């Protein structure tokens, strides 16, 4: 089991989920099983984390030939980039099963499948394998929103599915193109990511393939202006689906940019990074502004999440180590803070049977523990020093300033924008006078406190002592940055060469 | 030479029969016309040394299937008023010919590329019951069995579909 630790982390939940779907288990049995499985995965994950060296390369590699004729392999591995996304999912999942006690069997089964598929997408070392997991992880979300969502669930399901499928089909085409290009250049078939980095791409087709990849990831992240599926899906989806989407799945989009786009499309990446960076920062401001106009707290959180994703995406495109490390750190930080916020929103919605901010108020007086927990997650989300949100945001702003002053200054405004809508929402939901609806609000139960405690502890620990995390992230980020810098030098040299040619 | 004449005679008959099938308004007339085609086709089979098929065509097709059809037509006692009004029939026919002509042309072009061969009667028991039977039950056993299942299914299906008594009340 331990030599196949990643495979176990992927397939244990998937198989458990399928078993749940196929057998007539009661909903409590399903929940218990899901909890046990996710805790087992957590134990595996902790073992993986402690065994991880962090030298920058892939570790815990598993490699088996799958389709020899096409060079498609079953390749898995983790490095500093994937480790934390994997761990974020692993740590956060058990709490869902602790918190949501009243759902049906399918709810838990789908969550388990999503967990496994996401682990697979993060650890895949082969483009085709990645693509398969990438698509599989959408399926449970599709069912969860469609089956357990709110009033507009069908429209939301269609929207998210069509958007993401459109993106990923373009990516599939780009993957095929890469495979063929690889075969043409080296005479063998391979979809291995490490091999792909050796590929030399030129011309319009390369740009198209780059766009294919970027579009798929931009939709998943979501980068402005591809974010319009997000508010609907996050709002109408059940709490756990929203949690999975915002806390982990969106991060896989960011992860995929680092993992695939930077090594394979280095030249295109450096050429279009500025546009992407602007998209990121515009998305941050745009969604931040949209958030203040929301009357529905879940939709507001959705926009806030999209706004933060803009900042995280910005960090990718700044092409320096601070911003990239910040981005990767922020991935985890945002997973914990926004994940927790959506879980709180789920609890709020379940207990109050409303999503309208105007219907609430005075909850802090009824439920001080809930209010305090919410406040901690909220403060992490607005990037207060001492919480996890600050480190990443600070590093990204720092890196952005170096990359481009205008972008850096705009990115800095996230400090203000975030706090405006968050505080205003907090005021209307938790402060002011309570009404007959919120009078009845029940504070968190012991099990819920237990479920949230690890998340909150993580938020604080990552804010006060982030260095152990950064130490594992930085070497992997440095490799990517070196790739980028190398590409920039090559581009400069080419430009120089062309210049001298013109002079002659 | 005689075979040549015979072929043209039969071909003319079969085409006329087919045209009749398409043109006659009443299905009874069409069916009769169609029988002519079937019988002339049986002659064609004979000319092509397919002795067993000649017999089968006459007995099964012209005999059994067509009599079933004619029986049903008579059974339903079709009046002029039962027939659908087909006002644009001529137009459809002309249009159809226009549309189908390229298909025919295409097929004909393909056929023309085939090697010519003579159609003299082949002896040695070619196309006789014994030899066809040997092939049928040796190399075509599985399709044969499947066809038998198909016939069974069709039989049951026909009974179920046509045998609903309660409808029409």
């Amino acid at each position, binding site marked *: 089991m331990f030599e196949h630790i990643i495979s176990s982390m992927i397939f244990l939940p998937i198989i458990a989920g399928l078993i749940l779907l196929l057998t007539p288990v009661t909903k409590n049995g399903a929940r218990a099983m899901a909890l046990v499985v996710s805790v087992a995965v957590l134990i595996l994950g902790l073992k993986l984390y402690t065994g991880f060296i962090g030298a920058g390369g892939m570790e815990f590699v598993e490699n088996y030939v799958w389709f020899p004729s096409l060079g498609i392999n079953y390749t898995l591995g983790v490095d500093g980039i994937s480790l934390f996304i994997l761990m974020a999912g692993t740590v956060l999942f058990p709490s869902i099963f602790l918190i949501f006690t009243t759902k049906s069997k399918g709810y838990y089964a789908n969550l388990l499948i999503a967990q496994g598929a996401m682990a697979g997408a993060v650890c895949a070392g082969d483009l085709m394998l990645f693509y398969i997991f990438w698509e599989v992880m959408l399926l449970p979300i599709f069912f969860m929103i469609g089956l357990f969502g709110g009033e507009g669930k069908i429209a939301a399901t269609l929207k998210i599915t069509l958007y993401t499928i459109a993106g990923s089909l373009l990516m599939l085409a780009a993957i095929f193109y890469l495979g063929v290009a690889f075969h043409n250049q080296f005479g063998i078939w391979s979809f291995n990511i490490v091999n792909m980095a050796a590929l030399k791409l030129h011309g319009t087709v390369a740009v198209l393939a780059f766009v294919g990849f970027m579009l798929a990831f931009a939709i998943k992240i979501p980068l402005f202006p591809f974010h319009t599926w997000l508010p609907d899906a996050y709002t109408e989806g059940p709490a756990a689906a929203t949690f999975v989407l915002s806390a982990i799945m969106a991060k896989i989009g960011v992860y995929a940019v680092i993992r695939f786009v930077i090594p394979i499309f280095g030249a295109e990446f450096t050429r279009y990074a500025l546009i992407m960076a602007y998209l990121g920062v515009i998305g941050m401001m745009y969604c931040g*502004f*949209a958030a203040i106009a929301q009357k529905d707290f879940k939709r507001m959180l959705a926009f806030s999440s999209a706004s933060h994703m803009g900042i995280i995406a910005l960090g990718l495109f700044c092409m320096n180590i601070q911003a990239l490390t910040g981005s990767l750190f922020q991935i985890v930080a945002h997973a914990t803070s926004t994940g927790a916020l959506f879980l709180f929103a789920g609890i709020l919605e379940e207990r109050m049977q409303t999503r309208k901010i105007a219907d609430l108020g*005075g909850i802090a*007086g009824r439920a001080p523990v809930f209010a305090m927990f919410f406040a901690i997650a909220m*403060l992490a989300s607005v990037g207060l020093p001492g919480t996890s949100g600050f480190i990443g945001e600070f590093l990204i*702003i720092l890196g952005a300033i170096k990359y481009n002053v205008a972008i850096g200054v705009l990115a800095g405004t996230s400090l203000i924008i975030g706090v405006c809508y968050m505080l205003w929402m907090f005021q209307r939901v938790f402060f002011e006078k309570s009404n007959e609806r919120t009078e009845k609000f029940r504070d968190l139960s012991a099990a819920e406190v237990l479920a949230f405690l690890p998340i909150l502890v993580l938020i604080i620990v990552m804010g006060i002592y982030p*260095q152990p995390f950064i130490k594992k992230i930085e070497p992997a980020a440095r490799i990517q940055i070196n790739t980028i810098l190398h590409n920039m030098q090559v581009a400069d040299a080419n430009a120089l060469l062309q210049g001298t040619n013109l002079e002659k | 030479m005689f075979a040549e004449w015979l072929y043209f005679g039969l071909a003319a008959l079969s085409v006329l029969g087919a045209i009749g099938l398409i043109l006659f308004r009443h299905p009874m007339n069409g069916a009769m016309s169609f029988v002519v085609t079937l019988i002339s086709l049986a002659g064609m089979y004979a000319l092509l040394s397919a002795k067993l098929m000649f017999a089968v065509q006459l007995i099964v097709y012209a005999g059994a299937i067509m009599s079933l059809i004619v029986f049903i037509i008579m059974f339903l006692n079709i009046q002029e008023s039962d027939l659908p009004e087909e006002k644009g029939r001529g137009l459809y026919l002309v249009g159809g010919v226009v549309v189908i002509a390229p298909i025919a*042309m*295409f097929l004909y*072009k393909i056929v023309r590329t085939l090697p010519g061969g003579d159609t003299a009667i082949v002896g040695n028991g070619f196309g006789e019951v014994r030899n066809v039977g040997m092939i049928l039950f040796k190399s075509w056993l599985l399709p044969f069995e499947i066809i038998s299942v198909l016939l069974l299914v069709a039989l049951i299906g026909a009974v179920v579909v046509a045998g609903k008594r309660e409808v029409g009340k």
Partner: protein
Amino acid sequence: MEQTAHFYLGLIPLMPLIGAVLIGLMHVTTCRGHRFPDKLYAVLACIGPVLACIMAFQVFTILKTLPVEHRILVHKVFTWFSVGELNISMGFMADPLSSLMILFVTFIGSLIHIYSIGYMADDKTYAKFFGYMNLFLGSMLILVLGDGPVVMFVGWEGVGLCSYLLISYYNEDSSNVLAGNKAFIVNRIGDLGFVLGMAFLFWAIGAQGFDYISLKANAHLLPQATAMLVCLLLFVGATGKSAQIPLYVWLPDAMAGPTPVSALIHAATMVTAGVYMVARFSFLYVTVPDAGEIVAWIGILTALVSAIYGMFQDDIKKVLAYSTVSQLGYMFAGVGVAAYSAGIFHVFTHAFFKALLFLGAGSVIYAMHHEQNIWKMGGLKKKLPVTYLTMLVGALALSGCPPFSGFFSKDEILFSAFASGHKAIWAIGVLVAGMTAYYTFRMIFVVFHGEPHSKSSYDHAHEPPPVMTVPLVLLAIGALLAGFFNLPELFGGHQMVSSWLEPSVLDHHAHAEASTEWMVMGSSVLAFVIGFSIAYVKFAKGAQLPVFTGFAKFAYNKFYIDELYDMLFVQPYKSIGAIIWKDFDPNVTDGPRKAISWLYGAIGDAFRLVQTGYVRVYAIYMVIGLSLISLLISQTLN
């Protein structure tokens, strides 16, 4: 000896923080069931600050034993985060500047905590209040002791958060919460300046180390333009935190919190952070005198504007709030003209008399059952003698009456401004001094002299318990004597504070003739006398609620600045949000998607026409297709 000091350095901010966490945990775990007694919380809350205060004294004395050029202790607790050339340690530094700051921060903070035991006695969420207070003090100590700008920023944001929590403490009333939001958001605007300043500073000279010592050593490498930019951006941060133009609007609203909170914000923590920061970065500001000029002008204009506001307020706490803004303006004028030690000295004396005034006001409010309007008080002199006397000391110090502490510190700033050639700033400063005397004694006279305006509450008024009056007396002594620490040589003093701060701040020493010094001092005293006399004439014999007209009305409504900001920033922000959400997002951003789905629908509708439902028609389509294909392929055959 130094080892102990290092040990203390880490512990000083930790003490109140531990208290905060402990109280917080106790409060949260017991909030639904049986609560711990309030006394326990009170003791727990006061232990942290008092211990921190004792340790601060220790550090101060240890530092004093060291030779002047070695008076700097750095204790790096752990590497906070390190990415590439960016290395940030969670480190604490004690030098003359920060040791002086923590000394009075912890001292006054402790007194305010003790005072709160009495003031908050009948509060339902006693524990929560003290948890926040401890957190506040801890954040301030981190701010002061941090060994680099990033660690300072932790405290910087921390005090912002705590001010939010405490201002919106009575959170059932939405106006209080709005005031808290305003404080936090306005502070955040300043913080943006701070962060950007840090970023520019880092990319310019931060690679060799991003703490004050390395920065100071490398400051000469900084290009002039960058230095200017960094200084201005950092000053934006300072205007947010220290309530200067244009970000001063939050401070008066911050009066929504309990009075001890106001005292803590105004005296010991938070608002002085901006001045401290400018002094801390004096090594940058001296390289660009233009930046200092801007700081000084903004400071003195703030002083003037808020003094004007202060003359027309009718809420006792608002008068004090504007006086704080005004005094902060003085401090910035001081640091702006490169008289850093004078600025810090004013911070020091101001901490005493402003804490005193707020706590005194708290006593009055406590006695009057949470009545804050000065026109409903009056004649309280007899009922609250201790409060009256201590507040009088505070008022004299605030208005710069010799020999109270405020006189010396304010005079030093004015003198520095005059001597360094900023005559206009000096002139405004003297004018503001007169106005300060006027509105301070207007408040004192209306509240304590004359006839009671509200008989019933006057009858119920009584002197608060000793737990509240003892801190008042201690602070009054401080307010009286603090000025002597920096007695100018003119009076035979040795300028102890200035020489103590010498190694930390790069003072610009302006020298002038003794006669000039006498002239400057004389004009300040004259301004005080004039302001006091006008107040005496108008209010000492009792006065009624005035009706404001013309300019007075304009000033009473604070020049409508809040309304202006609301119109310029808040409403556009909300409407942009609404436009994006209601119009732009569904129509423009989502437009392509909608267009595509419409296209699909249209194509589908078009194809519906073809679907007649007649089998024969489908067969015809099939044949037509077959025919077309045949035609195509026929072309290739001969």
